[in-house]
């Protein structure tokens, strides 16, 4: 994954727990990289090691780490670094989600070596939508959940997220029902 992801984890930890905690996380993860460059791709393993180390160091579940990270990604990384991109994505949650499939396709242009997830939407209703998450990576559905939650917060909309189907239970991909 691109350095920007790892960097976001670093920012999340430093911002909330201080630089020393980050050093501890890094030490624990065994990741010996002092600087992450945003548009450099790193081994996916680095990201997973960091996430697990955070979970161990802070004594919270990996799922919680990923959810928090998802929210942080939207609200901090997305908003602060690619604010206009996020805003251009739509003027409300529904619009944004409808545009979401297109959204990541664009990001792939910015990060050419991306292994991007694919999003599809269906069952568009007045107050809910089905978000299909098709990814080559495993174990990131909690991250996606955090992302969707973060979007709700970004648009000041209370959301409930329901995992309708997932790969672990034999489906082809994950389907989230996002209601507001």
């Amino acid at each position, binding site marked *: 994954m691109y350095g*920007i992801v790892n960097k976001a984890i670093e920012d999340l930890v430093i911002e909330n727990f201080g630089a020393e905690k980050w050093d501890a996380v890094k030490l624990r993860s065994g990741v010996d990289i002092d*600087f992450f*460059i945003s*548009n450099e791709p790193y081994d996916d393993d680095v990201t997973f090691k960091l996430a697990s180390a955070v979970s161990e160091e802070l004594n919270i579940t990996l799922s919680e780490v990923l959810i928090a990270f998802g929210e942080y990604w939207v609200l901090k990384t997305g908003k602060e670094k690619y604010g*206009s*991109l996020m805003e*251009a994505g739509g003027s409300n949650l529904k619009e944004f989600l409808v545009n979401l499939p297109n959204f990541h396709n664009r*990001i792939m*242009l*910015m990060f050419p070596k991306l292994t991007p997830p694919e999003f599809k939407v269906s069952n568009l209703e007045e107050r809910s939508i089905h978000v299909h998450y098709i990814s080559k990576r495993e174990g990131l559905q909690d991250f996606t959940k955090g992302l969707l939650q973060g979007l709700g917060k970004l648009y000041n909309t209370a959301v409930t997220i329901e995992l309708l189907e997932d790969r672990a239970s034999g489906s082809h991909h994950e389907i989230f029902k996002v209601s507001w």
Partner: protein
Amino acid sequence: MKYLKFPGKMEMLQFNSEQFNSLFPFYFLLNNKMQIIKTGNSLAKLIVINRNEPFSEVFAIQRPVLETVADFKSSVNLCNQLISIKCLKKENISLRGQFQYLQQADKILFIGSPWFSSVEEIKENNLKLNDFAVHDPVIDLLHLLKTQEIVTDEVKVLLNTINKQKSDLKRLSLLAQETVNGVVITDASGKIEWINKGFEKITGYSLEEIKNKTPGSILQGKDSSAETINYLKQQILNKQPFVCEIINYKKNGQQYWVRINGQPLFDNKNMLTGFFAIEEDITQEKENELNLQHYEERFRIALEKIGDNVWIHDFESNTTEFSKNDTDFLGFDLSKTKINPQLWWNCVHPDDKWMLNKNNAAYLAGEIDHHNLEYRIIHKTGQVKWVLDRGIVFEKKNNLPLRIIGTHTDITKLKEAEATINTQKQFYETILNNIPSDIAVFDNTHKYLFVNPKGIKDENIRKWIIGKRDEDYIKFRNKPSYILEGRRKLFNEVLKSKKIKSWEEEVIKPDGSREYIIRNMYPYVNEKGIVELIIGYGVDITERIKIEQQLKIAQQETQEAALAKERFLANMSHEIRTPMNGILGITGFLEKTHLLPKQKEYVHLIKESTSNLLVILNDVLDLEKIIAGKLELEKTPFNVSQKIKAAAESFRHKAEEKYLTIKYKNNLPENLFVEGDPYRLSQVLLNLISNAIKFTEKGTITIGADIKQQSKNTIEISFFIADTGVGIAKNKLTQIFDPYVQAKADISRKYGGTGLGLSICKNLVEIQNGNITVESKEGKGSTFNFTITYKKAKQTTEPKPIVLNFKGLKNKNILVAEDVEVNQYVIENMLKNWGCKTTIVDTGKKAVQAVKSKSFDLILMDVQMPEMNGFEATEAIRKLSNKQKANLPVIAVTANSMKGISSRYKSSGMNDYILKPFDEASLFAVMEKFLLSKYPSKKIGVKKAMVYDAAKIKALAKGDDAFIKKLSEIFTRTSPQIFKALQEAIAEKNWQQAGKEAHKLKSSINSLGISDGKKLIEDIEQRCKTKKQLSTVALLCNKFKIVLDKSIEQLTNNFLN
């Protein structure tokens, strides 16, 4: 409907408007007039363009640069080029795209997108992602840019960090390079890779010489401890840090001590990459340590020699070693304490153990590095000993004491002595603390050494103040600074004078009551004569002062009472004398008329009763005067024998009436003249003779006198009056001289009298420096004896008995000023009988008036009169401008017999006075002085009558009355003394001394202008100095005395009363 022409195939593609818009949302269409006739949706959102608005008003072509304003033709020529146009209506908006000429329609189509330099601008221009055609890469390009920006920022941070680390590293390596310590870095196998300058300097080797060799192989030698070398090898082998001290060898073979501090170095993967070591040259340190050990040894020996027990305690092993193992201290063998570390502790007195525990804890906590304790230990014998235990840390580990060294000193004797001193100190302090006076002891810099609780009550302040100066105390108490200055001044005075200083202080307490304290500062002067201490102590004298004050008040009250009594007596005397004057006067006239024998007897009785009353009155007044010390004695020469005889004779008639014999047994020379008061002598004699006759029924009254003893100048005469009367009971003998006492209670009834007679006699005798006694046997008679010492006087002719020769008074004009009618009548009649002419007035005012309008020869002036009293009238007369009238003789007529009257009448300018009641003879006597020719009327006037020169004194004083008073006071006080000395010198014939005394007198006589005395004293001085005509010096002295006495009297009256 739009047409797009594909060149080559010439095939037309058709889009509807919506399709075209979604493909090119920023397109616009120009007609051949260069008007914008159509715009895409997104362009319309970006810029407001009116229909047919000329292109040139909305846009300008930026690139390619045109020479003229773009017209339709030139624009067509721009087809197939990249065109950048700038919007004129909105700032910072430009479009990027291309023109396409549509031949058929003769129009130009612009296809392109807005060109932004950052994603933020999209939002600023209100555009959304959807406003761009999906194929349009502008946004993605911008995001790519954004990503690049983010990365650039990250790289900047990274660079910064790296730069910082680089400079840190530089500094570190410099440190490593420049430090005086040796730094060596080896590879994992221990071979040298790098050394710093310090290492080169210490060892003398350069890097080239020793690179790739192990430090041990080049530095260690025969004295390097094998044990340490082994340790080093082990640590390196085990990839462990190492610290040690070892002897190494320099390149030149010289030995040195080094402390090595080494550290293995690992890489990220925890792989040993090498070792890093700092080598510190500690040769000097080692030497010092050695010296210290020597020193310690010597010190310990010295201490032991002094007699102390030196010990070393090791905290780690908890053992103590003692240098003296003898049994002095505890009675146990101290060498065993190493085995039994508790031995010493066990011997410590249970009450003092806490001290050692506390001390130990403090050492182990690193709070102290030395101690100094005094505690008790119990000797094996049970004896309690005092020990002084001192110690100091001399070896530390981890900054905490490891070993302490110290001494034990037996201070039992010292403690015992101290205790004795303490008891003594306590004893004295108890005394000092309980003395009811405040005591403070200062050293000679005014620092407090001691103060007792009476001085400062508060115990804390009392403790605090020791060693402080008095000014600290004053500041502490917030007292005003003048108190300090005052105290400091006194202190310094005492310091200087070395004499005690005492003063009284009045302290007003908060409740308003007053306290009086005598404060003293007493210097303690040591043998060298230096004031070592100053002891301040105060004694509360409030009680005493209060008693004194009460006494003063009582005294004042007594004085006032006495004064009241005196005033009362004066009034009474006055009130009685005034009517008596009438009675006596008129009785006198009555007597001279033709009377039947019976009437004559009655008149006689009236006279006698009146006289008796007068005697009683005089007795009372006399006694009071004597008691009050206000009786004035006269000093005139008189013949004593004559006085005795006259007194005896005056009673002969009375005695004969009772058939008593009067015997006269005078052994004095007939013409013995003495100086004294003849009247007071007569008074005593008459009183005693009168008593003798009164208390004797038959027998003899013997009156006599003898010379008891005499010197050249004085003579003591003893008088006696013996009777054969009733006598006095033995038990009454002592009382009879008390006032108002008579020998028998019924006496006054039987014999009459006030009972004051004897008391007056006794007092009169005593004030003449005499003595009166009585001997008596009841029924046999009494003998009264009294003595008086007189100055001998030369024989003088006593004034002959007055012969009442009224002739001289004939036709004299007399002014009588008298307000009481009876007295007017009496005086008028007397004067008329003598042939005088009288004018009577009843106020002082009228008297002055009369003097002014008529001429008189003399004035009889009553003192107490309405409107203007006699004194005031006289003063007014004296001030009259007519000199003759102003100098008229004025005689005061007064019933007031108390002291002060005579000086008062004199000072107001009266010439003489007569006391009421008076008889013809005494009135005549006083008038005769001023009217008959043998007393030539001398110039009268207060000023002229003075022996001193008032004008001269006043000139001298220049208006300062106090000066005159002082002058008079000095003269009246000192001149009698000098005169006495003069007389004594003359008596001893010490002429030189006499001359000196006379000279002294002369100057003061001169300054007062006493002209009468001046000539006399000059004569005396002259004769004494020349020793010529000495026989008459005494005589001159007597003459001078008269002048001196007079001047003293006058000065006293005029200036001192």
